[in-house]
């Protein structure tokens, strides 16, 4: 065993399959994710990326396989063997989930401040002044002007909503965040700003992330490692630069060559 193997991975996925009725959409996926590592899952629409993400994030029961997560006090645990209460607790403390559409991840009818501090209140923080101070701090960290704290997210632009969603998830200092197409639907300059911010935050917080995207540029900028999916299977995995610069599988070659060069 090498030195590296002595620290456990943050998340270990083994032989994961996922089906909707008779149709299997994710087939036999395995990977390890290490603390602070960003993994991108790329592939075309319908390749099973989002289903895979939901399954490892304990939002969709797998039909076969295991997902283990390194709990702070109990080491690697199978998440589907935990009680629902433990799983939900995990999901709102050590995990984050950033949705493609901010409206799914935010409460659109309450203020930005309440959105950001909801998780802290769920954990039992009951001091309004402190909650508000933390919310302001996080709004600043995601580059939202703190004087917007009392505005509702439906008055925010798409990019701001996405940043607000990130703040809402990161306020509990999670170790892993799941992101489902976080930049799609944003224009390129806003995308660049968001990616830059995410890169800074993941480095600062030693935050691991699994990012589902169909945009290879997002993978290139953020991820150390990537997994290419086709028809529910991982056809190629490896270091991002390696996969993108020297694709081995025919599908990956097609994917890489399909990107328009301006």
């Amino acid at each position: 065993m090498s030195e590296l193997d002595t620290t456990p991975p943050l998340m270990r996925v083994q032989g994961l399959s996922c089906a909707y009725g008779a149709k299997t959409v994710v087939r036999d996926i395995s990977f390890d994710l290490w603390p602070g590592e960003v993994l991108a899952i790329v592939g075309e629409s319908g390749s099973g990326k989002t289903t895979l993400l939901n399954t490892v994030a304990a939002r969709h029961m797998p039909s076969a396989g295991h997902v283990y997560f390194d709990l702070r006090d109990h080491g690697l645990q199978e998440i589907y063997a935990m009680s629902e209460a433990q799983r939900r607790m995990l999901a709102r403390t050590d995990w984050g989930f950033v949705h493609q559409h901010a409206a799914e991840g935010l409460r659109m009818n309450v203020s930005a401040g309440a959105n950001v501090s909801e998780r802290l209140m769920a954990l039992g923080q009951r001091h309004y002044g402190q909650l508000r101070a933390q919310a302001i701090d996080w709004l600043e960290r995601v580059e939202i002007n703190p004087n917007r704290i009392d505005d509702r997210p439906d008055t925010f632009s798409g990019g701001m909503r996405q940043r607000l969603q990130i703040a809402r998830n990161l306020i509990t200092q999670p170790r892993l965040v799941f992101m489902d197409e976080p930049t799609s639907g944003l224009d390129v300059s806003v995308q660049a700003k968001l990616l830059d911010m995410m890169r800074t935050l993941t480095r600062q917080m030693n935050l691991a992330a699994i990012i589902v995207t169909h945009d290879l540029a997002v993978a290139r900028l953020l991820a150390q490692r990537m997994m290419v999916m086709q028809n529910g299977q991982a056809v190629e995995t490896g270091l991002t630069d390696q996969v993108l610069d020297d694709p081995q599988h025919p599908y990956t070659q097609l994917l890489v060559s399909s990107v328009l060069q301006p």
Partner: protein
Amino acid sequence: MSQNNPIESGPARDPHINFAYLDERTKRMIRRAILKAVAIPGYQVPFGSREMPLPYGWGTGGIQVTASIIGSTDVLKVIDQGSDDTVNAVNIRRFFQRTTGVEVTTDTTLASIIQTRHRIPETPLREGQVLVYQVPVPEPMQHLEPREQETRQLHALQEYGLMHVNLFEDLSHYGHISSTYDYPVLVNGRYIMSPSPIPKFDNPKMHLNPALQLFGAGREKRIYAVPPYTTVESLGFDDHPFEIQRWESACELCGSKESFLDEVLMDDQGKKMFVCSDSDYCSKRQVAP
């Protein structure tokens, strides 16, 4: 009927209607729900709410609860916004006079069952009394989380961050908690409960109350309960704790400074007066303050 009872005689008992209107099996079903509710304070127990001879929103939940616990020796008091002589109270009282023939009263101390809409009597309740609330919306998180499947799960897992989101909103917009009625409470340290639209002024009265408190929501088909001497804590923040409202003036009829006051407009010039909302309490104090 007791002396100094201002109730005009109501309708006579109609022998063609089963005692308390509901059939015996329905009453048993509701009693089972009540027993479960008492066993799990603050938990909303589903029950098979019946069609009643008045519309939803008029107290069908409370009436069904009262109908299933009332016996021929009970003494019934019905109040609406603290008053015994408003439309809702008069009609529910007449309904039970006609279907049970029980004695009715306006006197809080004489009643064994008090059905209420939107108030808790000012006169402290005692052991053996039952307070029945009419509840329009039993789920305290409904306006923040409309999916009932989700709210039931939140209750089951005791995930109550959402309730404080609501209070947080109030504080950030108004600088104080602006909810003045239906103010959420934590019952027995476990379930968050809607106290029905009573003013938050009444919330402290629920805490360790010697009477049994039953809540019936007819349209939503839920019954819940606070058994005698159960802790009922109103939510708040450490730096913005729960507070009840206070008035500058005293009741202009009885001079009470402790009771919940209604603002009554006297004429078209905007002249107004403050009077007790609890009419029984106020009239007794006028006789012997």
